[in-house]
């Protein structure tokens, strides 16, 4: 294997070699833009500049004065003619430069920080950098709420914390197994209503003949949600891609409508009042999580950290690798002996159980009604996962922090109906410049690079449909 024409030697670098990886047997190993000062003037770069300038104009219009129905366009014109427009254009150009030149900086950073790997065993070696980083982030998460107002703390629990937990669960389904689940919130609802059923005689017309401490509901809700996941998944996981998304969407709506309309069971649109707070009465310890959001915050933080560690182990195990195999090439995975259906079901059940778990926390924290389980909430979790970085645990938590942070920031500034304009803009911008998400997982980033180069079947949502069976 050492002839002069050995494939495997990287081909000489040239500006056209980036997209040829597949054709030549010895194509370049990495798809990486070459460094040209003239690269800034390439059509793709100019198009990016155009998009950013347009987005800047859009932002200027959206944040500018509100028009009225008599002169619908005047307000738009006023905001563009305003001197503030300069600020938005400068931001657009600066963003463009960062995006255009960011590749060079990242290449340098990667070259300096990538450790030299031993042969076998490096996969399980120490990862000192990330551990230090994670501890620093944890410290920030512990200190941060003390610096904020009570309203913000409240939001860090209801908005950020719960959604981070939900996104971690959905990440198993979407990010690891590559299945698009648009009805994920249904399992959250199952968890919440289970809590109301078991812990209170008054919250819903339908209740258990006894009352349990909410802590005992955790395992029940976990199992019930997992069971619901299996019941939904068993017949539908044979479907691929879009079809699965549609079925789960329908399931989510069914649960939502049931909760909303079954007045005699769930108390309908009025919601469930008076679910008791979490409390411990054990071995002389008496503690109740009350109105103050901070104790809830730390409980959630602890649970999120545990879930992140657990899912990290899963991801690096036989099970995580099998999920990756299913995502990348389901037929090859099946032929290599991976029980694809069972593993997809497992991903579904694990995701659902986390959602049910979050539902218990949510229900015992506060009043809830079926609006909390609307389609919009499902979409929001999917957006958090995609925005943060599919398959990346840290990514989806950061995604929840950023998107819910944005919600909190905007709640006083713009009308509630307008809020989704900003989400749309943020997510569209993200998909243009960073389709792999804010903090992408290494595997997922490689998959997206490959699918952009035309290798492999994995697109942004997992494996593309392949091969027909007779």
């Amino acid at each position, binding site marked *: 294997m050492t002839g002069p024409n050995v*494939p495997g030697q990287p081909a000489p670098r040239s500006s056209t070699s980036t997209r040829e990886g597949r054709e030549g047997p010895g194509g370049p190993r990495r798809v990486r833009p070459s460094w040209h000062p003239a690269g800034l003037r390439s059509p793709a770069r100019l198009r990016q500049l155009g998009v950013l300038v347009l987005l800047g104009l859009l932002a200027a219009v959206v944040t500018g004065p509100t028009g009225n129905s008599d002169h619908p366009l005047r307000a738009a014109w006023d905001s563009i003619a305003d001197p503030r427009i300069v600020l938005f254009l400068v931001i657009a150009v600066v963003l463009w430069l960062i995006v255009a030149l960011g590749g060079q900086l990242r290449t340098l950073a990667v070259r300096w920080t990538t450790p030299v790997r031993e042969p*076998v065993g490096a*996969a399980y070696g120490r990862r000192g950098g990330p551990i230090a980083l994670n501890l620093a982030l944890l410290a920030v998460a512990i200190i941060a709420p003390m610096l904020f107002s009570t309203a913000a703390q409240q939001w860090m629990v209801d908005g950020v914390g719960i959604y981070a937990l939900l996104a971690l669960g959905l990440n198993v389904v979407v990010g690891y197994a590559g299945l698009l689940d648009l009805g994920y919130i249904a399992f959250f609802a199952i968890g919440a209503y289970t809590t109301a059923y078991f812990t209170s005689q008054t919250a819903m017309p339908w209740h258990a003949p006894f009352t349990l401490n909410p802590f005992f509901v955790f395992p029940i809700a976990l199992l019930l949600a997992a069971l619901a996941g299996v019941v939904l998944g068993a017949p539908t996981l044979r479907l691929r891609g879009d079809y699965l998304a549609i079925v789960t969407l329908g399931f989510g709506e069914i649960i939502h409508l049931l909760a909303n309309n079954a007045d005699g069971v769930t108390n309908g649109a009025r919601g469930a009042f008076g679910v008791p707070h979490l409390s411990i009465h054990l071995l002389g310890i008496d503690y109740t999580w009350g109105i103050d959001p901070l104790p809830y915050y730390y409980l959630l933080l602890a649970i999120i950290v545990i879930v992140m560690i657990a899912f990290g182990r899963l991801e690096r*195990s*036989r099970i995580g*690798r099998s999920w990756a195999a299913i995502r990348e090439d389901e037929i090859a995975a099946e032929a*290599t002996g*991976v029980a694809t259906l069972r593993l997809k079901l497992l991903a579904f059940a694990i995701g659902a159980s986390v959602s049910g778990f979050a539902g218990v926390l949510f229900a015992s924290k506060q009043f809830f009604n079926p609006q909390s389980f609307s389609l919009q909430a499902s979409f929001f979790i999917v957006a958090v996962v995609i925005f943060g970085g599919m398959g990346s645990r840290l990514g989806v938590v950061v995604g929840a922090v950023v998107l819910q942070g944005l919600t909190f920031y905007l709640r006083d500034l713009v009308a509630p109906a307008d809020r989704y304009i900003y989400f749309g803009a943020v997510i569209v911008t993200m998909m243009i410049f960073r389709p792999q998400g804010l903090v992408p997982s290494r595997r997922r980033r490689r998959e997206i690079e490959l699918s952009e180069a035309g290798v492999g079947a994995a697109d942004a949502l997992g494996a593309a449909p392949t091969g027909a069976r007779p």
Partner: protein
Amino acid sequence: MSRAGSHRASARRGGAAAVPGARQPSMMENVGGDPGDLVVEARDLSLRFGGVTSLDGVSLRQRRGEILAVIGPNGAGKTSLFNCLTGAYRPQEGSVTFWPQPGQSTELLGRRPHAITRLGVARTFQNIRLFPALSALENVQIGTEVRQKYGPLSVVLGLPHARRAERDGVRRAADLLDLVGLAHRTHEQAASLPYGEQRRLEIARALGTDPRLLLLDEPAAGTNPVEKRDLAALVTRIAATGVSVLLIEHDMGLVMSLATTVAVLNFGRMIAYGSPSEVQRDPAVIEAYLGADSGTGPGPGAGGAGNRRELG
């Protein structure tokens, strides 16, 4: 595409091109030996896609430890045969019996592909199907971990038996990478390997499932002469470890040097079966490869050699 067209042609011309029915039994008798040392036996497999007949009563026997090559023109049904053996397709008629150990027979038809792989039948694909974003080691690990039993809870809790199984899987995967000569690529992304190495990585992944029968679908397609020589050595080494190899290949040089037995398919029927030299002289084979006119022409060794490419 053209593949379907050729199948349709087979339905019409099949009768003329295939050998008379009376010849079939005698051909199977050539296999000889007692059935006890068989590793796989397919009987009367028929596979149809709507009106297109892909396999038309194909029977095949392979003895344990043998390297059996399946050859034939494009669209003859070779890959369909593989897909039937591995559970990817379900033929309308016939049966497939597999003996993981001597005297321990199992029916393969009706099982899902992963179950068949776990029984000990592994395969590679004609168009390479690795997990492109995983490293070479991880690709093989998927194979070596196939029969491991530990569940998600043991993983999350980090129980000792799960850790042991994990280390065991890594070690076996590393050994296999060594066997196929890819130890220096252990942590490289599969998609970044050159073509010939991807072929060998796919073989390593299949071997990871610890098969008794290994199905190689055109392992030499698109490789250069040096890689072909390495591949032949590798297949011989694999067979020497007691794994039976069933091989689809267009490179006649490779087939003639490697295979102990050759089966020839044409239009979904088996037209010849025997040792490489017998098959090479068989008039039906010569006709299938070169057309009816060149009755005394050279065998497929010269005629149908390495320049053929399977398109579908």
